[in-house]
């Protein structure tokens, strides 16, 4: 039961997010009053006007006006975004209501891959050489002027959707046309794509929380499957990283430099960084937490710090506490290694069944196997797709053991597909 003085959190939940349960349940555990804002109305909105609202996520300024109107009758103490689109909306609302958050310009820069690279390059952060290309451009002419290998990507999509490597002019032209088709479906208003140098090296993901502009890194996740293209569908994340300590320090410093260059001040970040003999390269940074259900791989345990009596926090609890300026008992990740596998799409088709889930779950160190695709769902592989089949989680003594467990569990799964109509 909520107390009358419970702080109210405005939670921006797009209807397609995986993050609903994690954030709603975290807020409940914290005793926080929640107002869920989505871009489409809940059928219960009239029944619970304090708890459910519809905001215009496509127009952050309009959403901020809507939040202002809502706040006239319900005092809002904090706002949390869960993905790239809502990160800009949350910044606009935070500015409008005077809440903890990022400047709108910074959130917008993080959302726009071209603007982000411009700011990072200007600040001296190592980024791949890049060029913005209008979708109306002549791809053959652009291909003649490109350096190879290069990577073509939409400037506005997420989850490696539409990201394609090209090693030759012919591959460049094919990738260009393919991304145009993806944009026509996924982001019809987008009129450009980014062409950038392919940076060889080991890729990691950095998770952290920014407070007053200072980045606290929670975890550096190794991505042990090589991300060399032609497409960049992610699979395994394992932490702690097995990179050398100096490499990890360079990666953390690179992420902090990017946060500063973009002007981010408050809230979670998720960054993709590559590391090679020339140091750390910022590939992308988003002003949001890790996507999908991958946050389940992060757990924060006060037993390790001696500040509490065995309290375990989720990433979502930390993000909510930060947004509401509540005390955060720990920012230290648990001691053991942890990993998640985003189950790759095996091919195009309609999912009929997933077999071997029990066997996968029985693999030592496997914590859970969550199949999120539903029977009858049409599966679309990358680069057109952006929905995984599900997630496998593991924990153990070492990152090597966790990675091996994830691979063994995945090998136990069998996916029955039918050809799509």
């Amino acid at each position: 039961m909520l107390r009358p003085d419970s702080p109210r959190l405005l939670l921006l939940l797009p209807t397609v997010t995986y993050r609903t349960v994690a954030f709603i349940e975290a807020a409940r555990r914290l005793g926080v009053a929640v107002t869920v804002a989505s871009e489409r109305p809940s059928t219960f909105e009239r029944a619970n006007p304090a708890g459910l609202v519809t905001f215009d996520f496509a127009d952050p300024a309009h959403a901020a006006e809507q939040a202002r109107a809502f706040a006239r009758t319900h005092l809002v103490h904090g706002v949390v975004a869960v993905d790239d689109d809502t990160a800009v909306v949350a910044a606009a609302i935070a500015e409008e209501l005077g809440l903890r958050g990022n400047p709108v310009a910074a959130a917008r820069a993080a959302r726009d891959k071209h603007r982000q690279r411009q700011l990072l390059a200007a600040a001296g952060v190592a980024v791949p050489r890049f060029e913005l290309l209008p979708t109306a451009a002549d791809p053959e002419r652009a291909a003649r002027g490109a350096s190879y290998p290069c990577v073509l990507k939409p400037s506005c999509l997420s989850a490696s959707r539409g990201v394609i490597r090209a090693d030759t002019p012919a591959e460049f032209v094919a990738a260009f046309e393919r991304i145009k088709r993806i944009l026509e479906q996924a982001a019809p208003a987008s009129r450009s794509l980014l062409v950038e140098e392919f940076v060889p090296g080991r890729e990691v993901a950095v998770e952290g929380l920014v407070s007053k502009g200072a980045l606290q890194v929670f975890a550096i996740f190794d991505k042990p499957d090589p991300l060399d293209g032609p497409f960049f569908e992610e699979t395994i994340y394992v932490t702690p990283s097995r990179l050398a300590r100096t490499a990890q320090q360079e990666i953390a410093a690179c992420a902090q430099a990017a946060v500063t260059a973009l002007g981010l001040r408050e809230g979670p970040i998720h960054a993709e960084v590559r590391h090679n003999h020339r140091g750390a390269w910022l590939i992308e940074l988003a002003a949001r937490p890790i996507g999908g259900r991958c946050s389940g791989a992060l757990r924060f345990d006060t037993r390790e710090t001696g500040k509490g009596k065995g309290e375990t926090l989720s990433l979502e609890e930390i993000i909510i506490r930060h947004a509401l300026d509540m005390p955060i008992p720990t920012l230290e990740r648990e001691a053991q290694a942890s990993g998640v596998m985003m189950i790759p799409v095996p091919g195009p088709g309609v999912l009929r069944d997933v077999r071997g889930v029990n066997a996968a779950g029985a693999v030592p160190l496997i914590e859970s196997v969550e199949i999120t695709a539903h029977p009858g769902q049409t599966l679309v592989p990358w680069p057109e797709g952006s929905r995984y089949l599900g997630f496998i989680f593991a924990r153990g003594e070492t990152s090597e053991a966790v990675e091996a467990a994830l691979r063994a569990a995945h090998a136990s799964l069998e996916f029955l597909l039918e050809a799509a109509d």
Partner: protein
Amino acid sequence: MSVTDVRITAEPIDNGRCKFLVSEPLHVGGVRRFATPDEARGSPLAEAIFAIPGADVSEVIVSANLVTVVKRSPAPWPVVGKAVGQAIRAALAGGQPPVASKPAATSTPGSATADDALYERVADLFDSQVNPMVARHGGRVELIDVQDAVVMVRMAGGCQGCGMADVTLRQGIEAMLQQYVPEVKGIVDITDHAAGSNPYFAAAKK
């Protein structure tokens, strides 16, 4: 079928709660909810789950082939979950039903009689308001039972597997229950969301 052939899938909701989907039915007489080891007496499955060392289990709910376990311990689900799996297999292999039938109603305050009265009021609310609302998204919410003033529901249609099902549950149904039937102490979703074949909102990674 041997108990070694029984398939059990764990679906942690958070560090405190986890659903276990079992390929064999455990209880065919509706839903049983156990909030204490005393209540679990006579139901081998619930007794065994409450007895898991270090788990500090606070609640066990069994419905058909679904077991929901709530624990207070910070122990991770990989450890506790394996013990729950063993308890499920042992209960299925035992000579008596894993879960005893619901006891007959008594007149004690807060007992099954009070739950029956609550059930009627909640059912009325579901018929008159909740289900017409979720029907607009092709959904349906079935009132399974009320035990110790805790409402158990199963979602179907567009709600089953929907990315916003938890919003519907907490911000919609639970909020209405607090308003119209304030005696209700909580709500538990016993839906197998993974089996939902037509969710109204499907999630995508971002």
